[in-house]
């Protein structure tokens, strides 16, 4: 019978009273909602009492609320290895913190004459009730270990039964006395909510977190000016700190990212042996290519004649690139008459290398500015960017015995003659400008 009253009747009385009472008080006496401050009268001890008490009780209360409102989330958190121990530890530590803080507050309230002047009887009742309640909770936590785990299957269904109007006190009937007292204490605190300073729970000054600081001062001109100056200073300090924190954070992040990249850049790659040898091979190939090009240069300085191709390799519609005596590209074709056709491939406009494919009109094209050059005469088409013809290159045909059978210098007529049947055994050479043909 007593149980039924304490765990079903009392809760409903407490909840109904609390809701109606809080609404009534909020509507009729709005400014009494926040807790009456005594900071003005005494602020040293208050700091060491109020701060630990509030920090401790807020953490503990949030744990209770989370477990009660979202039991499944709560249980899933507890399944993480170590989470149970961590939560219990934090809970007990915060409870101790709250007890220390509350004790300091009680000591202050009963020893300071100034604070006593504004202390009401209900204040003392409330503070005593809170101390008893939190000591009971701490004792329960220590005696009946891991309440954060077992409560989800007992107290939480009991609570939800009350909320959904299907009260089931069997969940709590068999609890030890210690814990029953803790539960009853909770309902008493809720019952007292609208009649005491506890109602400040519902007036959490969240906007304090971002509003500008306000100073409470005695209203005299001198003090007002002083306060204005102080506020301006505090404001500008706040702005500076915010800005500095932002800049420092951004710079730090940036420096971190940049230095990570830069450090690795200078550290260099450490390729595995296979990639390393592939790299080395590629490098050697490039070196060989360069060496080859350099040897061309030497060859052109020393030799009066340079092999371009065997006659059989020449084609009528696709030229063969070679490098002439000026180290510029040249093209060798087989002409319609079967004789070689050798011209420079360096465009007379801006020096690009002309393409090697002949078009239908027997022309090659420079891709840079679209000039067409007739390979027979070297002349560009009308209106082409190039104005001068591609110069002819001196050449000689050498037969298999190494004898020059046919040659032509630019601007001169053909020297020697050759039997068409012997042509395939010949090779095409270019000849050094300004030198006779051996």
């Amino acid at each position, binding site marked *: 019978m007593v149980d039924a009253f304490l765990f079903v009747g009392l809760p409903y009385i407490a909840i109904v009273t609390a809701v109606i009472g809080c609404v009534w008080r909020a509507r009729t006496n709005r400014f009494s909602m926040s807790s009456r401050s005594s900071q003005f009268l005494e602020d040293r001890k208050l700091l060491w009492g109020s701060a630990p008490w509030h920090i401790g009780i807020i953490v503990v209360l949030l744990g209770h609320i989370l477990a009660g409102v979202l039991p499944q989330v709560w249980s899933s958190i507890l399944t993480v290895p170590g989470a149970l121990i961590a939560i219990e530890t934090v809970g007990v530590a915060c409870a101790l913190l709250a007890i220390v803080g509350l004790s300091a507050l009680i000591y202050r309230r009963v020893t300071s004459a100034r604070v006593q002047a504004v202390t009401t009887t209900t204040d003392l009742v409330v503070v005593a009730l809170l101390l008893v309640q939190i000591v009971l909770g701490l004792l329960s936590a220590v005696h009946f270990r891991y309440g954060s785990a077992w409560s989800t299957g007992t107290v939480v269904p009991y609570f939800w039964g009350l909320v959904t109007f299907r009260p089931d006190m069997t969940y709590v009937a068999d609890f030890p006395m210690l814990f029953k007292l803790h539960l009853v204490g909770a309902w008493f605190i809720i019952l007292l909510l609208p009649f005491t300073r506890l109602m400040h729970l519902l007036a959490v000054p969240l906007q304090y977190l971002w509003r500008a600081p306000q100073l409470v001062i005695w209203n005299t001109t001198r003090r007002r000016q002083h306060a204005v100056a102080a506020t301006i200073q505090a404001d500008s300090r706040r702005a500076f700190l915010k800005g500095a924190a932002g800049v420092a954070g951004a710079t730090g992040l940036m420096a971190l990212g940049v230095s990570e990249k830069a450090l690795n*850049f200078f550290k*260099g*790659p450490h390729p595995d042996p296979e990639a390393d040898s592939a790299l080395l091979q590629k*490098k050697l190939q490039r070196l060989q290519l*360069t060496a080859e090009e350099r040897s061309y240069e030497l060859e052109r300085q020393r030799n009066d004649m340079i092999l371009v191709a065997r006659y059989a390799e020449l084609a009528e519609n696709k030229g063969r690139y070679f490098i002439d005596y*000026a180290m510029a590209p040249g093209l060798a074709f087989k002409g319609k008459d079967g004789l070689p056709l050798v011209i420079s491939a360096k465009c007379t406009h801006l020096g690009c290398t002309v393409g090697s494919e002949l078009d239908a009109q027997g022309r090659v094209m420079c891709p840079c500015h679209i000039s067409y050059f007739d390979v027979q005469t070297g002349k560009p088409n009308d209106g082409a960017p190039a104005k001068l013809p591609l110069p002819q290159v001196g050449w000689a045909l050498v037969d298999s015995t190494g004898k020059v059978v046919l040659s032509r210098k630019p601007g001169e007529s053909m020297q020697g003659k050759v039997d068409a049947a012997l042509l395939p055994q010949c090779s095409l050479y270019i000849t050094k400008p300004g030198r006779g043909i051996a």
Partner: protein
Amino acid sequence: MKLPETIERTEAYLAERFPVEKMNYASMILKKEVPVHRLSWGYYMGGLALFFFLVQIATGVMLLFYYQPTVSDAHASVEYITEHVPAGALVRNIHAWASSLMIASVMVHLLSAFAMKAFGKPREITWITGVALLGITFAFGFTGYLLPWHQIAVNATKIGLQTIEEIGAYLPGQMATWPKAMKEIIQGEASVGQATLSRFFALHVIILPLSIAGILGIHLLSVQLHGMSQGVDEKPRRMEKFFPTYFLKDLSVWGVAFMVLFILGLCLPFDSLFAYPLFEPFNAKGSTPDGIKPEWYFFWVYYPLELLPFWVIMLGQTVLGVVMMATPWIFKNTNRRTLKVLAVAAGAYLVVMTVFGEKIYHLFKG
């Protein structure tokens, strides 16, 4: 005019441009104020160009650790940086993006300074050094373009250098050979080769940075000495302190620019804006590949060069150069409204030629 008089006048002229009594921390930093008005954004452009230049120095020095300026190794080392060095692709890509962004902000800086008549007395030296800096910046772009030694780099450089030789055809008598001689001095040998690469490398990493540092010093000194030009005709309603207010704003613009640059560097390879075969190593024996063109910031002169007779462009360039160097005196009495119209027209021309240059070219050349 007598010599002492000339000296005296020169002295007076320089004293007005470089007032020694103002060369101190208090008047160059603490007292400097920046006007606030509709065109205030223009004041950020020079700082932005400076920021990108600093980025270029940092990333350029980093690239120097791996780059090898020889014909055989240049392309391979660039490839090595891009493919193997950790964050190498990022560093190289930032270097490429920042070069373009630097030139873009320098161009906008030039036009906005022109529109705001920031070259008026006593800021002539600021303007002249600015024009010189623009030229050096373009030279940076041109020399840097060759260093990777791929197809587009070498071929574009060949064409660019050959253009110098073309000028000879329009010069009388003995002078006709000078451009060719000049080209060969720059090129170092008969064709673009190792000598050219070495010379461009020296220009790009030693000579140009040193000269830009010197001229930039004069430019910045003048800016701090004379303060920001008013920029608009009516007196600005509000002034901002340069330090710390404007300086911090400048820094936040730099911060945003760095973020944009970093994201671009991470996400969009600069090379992806070109067709791939252009990045093959340079092949001396093949034909010039299609699509050889200079960097976008030369389009404004490149496409007209393709379309119009050479002498027209040369004449235009000469006139442009003279006008730019003589701007402080030519436009001495022009009002800001006219200058703004001119600047907008020039800006529109630059944008149109850069964005639609290729289309315009095909329109006329088919």
